[in-house]
């Protein structure tokens, strides 16, 4: 250990402000990047639900169209 007390650690021989500022901002910057990545994953999960609903709508419409064309075919025959 290069220091004897908490005061010395914070003071850092007079350079405490610079050392702690650079460590703090760096950790914050990387932390924000990680959080942004996790939030993106959440947004993607929400988009997946929308995509699922879209695909369901499409499938339903296709089914309706098929049954409608079937009924028109039945009436003409």
């Amino acid at each position, binding site marked *: 250990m290069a220091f004897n007390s908490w005061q010395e650690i914070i003071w850092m021989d007079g350079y405490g402000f610079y050392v702690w500022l650079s460590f703090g901002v760096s950790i914050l910057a990387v932390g924000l990047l990680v959080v942004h990545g996790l939030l993106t994953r959440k947004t993607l999960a929400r988009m*997946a639900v929308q995509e699922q609903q879209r695909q369901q709508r499409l499938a339903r419409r296709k089914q309706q169209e098929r049954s409608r064309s079937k009924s028109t075919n039945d009436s003409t025959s």
Partner: protein
Amino acid sequence: MWKWLHPYAKGEATFRLLGAWLPWLSGLALILVSVGLVWGLFYAPPDYQQGDSYRIIFIHVPAAMFSMGAYTGMAIAALIALVWQIRTAEWAIAAIAPVGAVLTFVALFTGAVWGKPMWGTWWEWDARLTSELILLFLYIGVLALYYAFNDARTGAKAAAILSLVGVVNVPIIHFSVYWWNSLHQGATITKFSKPSMPPEMLIPLLISIAGFLFLTAALITQRLRNEILKQELHRPWAMQQLGVEANNGVQ
């Protein structure tokens, strides 16, 4: 010979491979960065000239190294994307650029905060600092180009070209302290002669560098996995991965 590589041009295979790596990469990153920084901050002896201010080196040097390393990786991905038209490589550009930009910002910021007490100024337009600032602008430019087009592939191609052109900046950053007179000190460890640092400082620095290597890899892996999911969102495997049942089979 290269046939084993072919499946990874597909998004899903790469996604699964990266998923297997991610816990190891982030675990090693967390352990090594913590050990390196705690050792450097509290246990390494103070510098005989710079006192305790030199402790900034344990973040500054690794961040600067991998700001350049990530750019080189991005340029390689860009080359693969342009020559072989592999989409995973295009997505890698979008995954690497934000990570590289943050590392570059960290290197510039810690450099400025270190420069103030040592050189008496936050900033100086000298070769090393200016070329590193240009690296930040290159990263931002690549990102801006990537997302600037309605057609994602056009954007990826434009971003890839800028990545490749900008790679000329990487050796300029590295050799700037030799080619021009600079306030910045010369290389401490990346030179062929013996490193000019005692082992009590060098060992925590090397641990921190190893930690930043894994940190960079883990951050890129996280973002590349997101990018693959985003691009393949309409495919059943991606929807299942995001916890949603795909309906492609339903008629």
